[in-house]
């Protein structure tokens, strides 16, 4: 398997706090990798470093051959992110939002238009193509947010809590989209919904207090902890079992 992401001793320290502690991680091309952990475990900091949004205190990560420290611009051209909150330009229409992101990644005006039309069709946004983003429902905004992340045709996609606040129907709809993308692009997913990670991901990494505590498939993690459910395995690995 070819690695898409290789983190080597990646660390982030803030004065007395170690947010990410010597993270060593290998994610393969086409893999859907879930990064889990309790609040403050270091997931978001790790993702921010991998997206070149935050400089590491030490260590490095190589994304498809480019270092996040030495070649951040090359890395940024290959990745995209769907942030935790629906990050859309509210006074722009659905189509304008999509065209905007396409142009940021180097598409000409006409290429951006063509790509936006294609994403509008594939994400079922045709009825709302000319509607301002602020008029969309939460589910539709989230769908647009992910379409915006995909319009640059990224080789690696970071999804930070993509289904947070969505109703069950909208969540299942997004799961379908992510399943269709599996194998085509590398995806790194952070979520608090354990069943989501179990249902979608090829492998799961569990972070606790800045360290990668466990790594494997959901079944492997259950076996490792001798637990029947993934939720119990997660609680054991994050040291919460004794407290509950």
């Amino acid at each position: 398997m070819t690695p898409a992401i290789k983190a080597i001793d990646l660390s982030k320290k803030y004065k007395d706090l170690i947010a990410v502690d010597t993270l060593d991680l290998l994610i393969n091309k086409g893999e859907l990798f879930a990064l889990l952990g309790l609040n403050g475990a270091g997931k978001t900091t790790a993702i921010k470093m991998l997206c070149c949004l935050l400089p590491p205190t030490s260590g490095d990560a190589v994304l498809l051959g480019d270092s996040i420290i030495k070649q951040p611009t090359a890395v940024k051209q290959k990745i995209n992110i769907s942030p935790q909150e629906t990050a859309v330009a509210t006074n722009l229409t659905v189509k304008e939002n999509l065209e905007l992101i396409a142009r940021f990644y180097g598409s000409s005006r006409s290429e951006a238009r063509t790509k936006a039309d294609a994403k509008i069709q594939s994400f079922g946004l045709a009825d709302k193509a000319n509607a301002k983003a602020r008029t969309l429902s939460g589910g539709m905004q989230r769908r647009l947010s992910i379409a915006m992340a995909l319009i640059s045709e990224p080789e690696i996609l970071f999804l930070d809590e993509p289904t947070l606040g969505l109703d069950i129907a909208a969540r299942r709809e997004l799961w379908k989209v992510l399943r269709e993308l599996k194998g085509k692009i590398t995806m790194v997913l952070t979520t608090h919904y354990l069943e989501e990670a179990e249902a979608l991901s090829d492998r799961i990494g569990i972070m606790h207090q800045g360290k990668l505590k466990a790594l494997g498939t959901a079944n492997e993690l259950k076996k490792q902890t001798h637990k029947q459910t993934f939720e119990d395995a997660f609680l054991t690995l994050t040291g919460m079992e004794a407290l509950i």
Partner: protein
Amino acid sequence: MRFMAFASRTTKEILRDPLNLIFGLGFPLVILFLLSFIQSNIPVDLFEIKHLSPGIAVFGLSFISLFSGMLIAKDRTTSFLMRMFASPLSASDFILGYTLPLLPMAILQSMVCFIAAIILGLTFNINILMALVVLIPTAVLFIGIGLLAGSIFNDKVVGGVCGALLTNLSAWLSGTWFDLNLVGGTFKAIAEAMPFVHAVDAARAAINGNYANMFPDLWWVIGYAVVIMVAGIWVFRMRMKG
């Protein structure tokens, strides 16, 4: 040229917000007409259209800080900026994208103010064009304040700082509503240490055709504009680095 796409988005976001049009254009025009009406009934030198219109133009420009500050702060608080920062856009693409579209908007805003002033009796001549040029550093100053405020504060605080505090300060300390000599003392000293009265005086000198009298007032404005803009760019870049 990626900043052009971003600049186009900035323009759309600002112009599509009706509140921006109400405050940026409507409010200064209402004040201009109101004070001119008062002047026509009770003549006051200060409210003569030649004297009043440069002050109203500067007052109108103060809303530019609110527009840009709110947009940047909202982008930060809604994670839109996080999405942008993860893209290949450079720091200069962002700064140009946020600030450049505001300059033609500011010039257009001043033009509308002077067109209204012409309707109210201001003589149309080359001096008006000179006043528009002289107001450009003032526009840059307010754009810089917006960049700085938007990079530091959240949208609620920007609303307070730029929407209430700055617009009031720039009005009271500009010598537009009342002659600063009437208050004098510390108030006048503070007003003269700030750029607003200098911006109004430089524009008044231009309108009156006294080009030599535009200085040193214009230097004050240019100095403030450069310092505030550099500070805004520095803070924005710091934000980009996380």
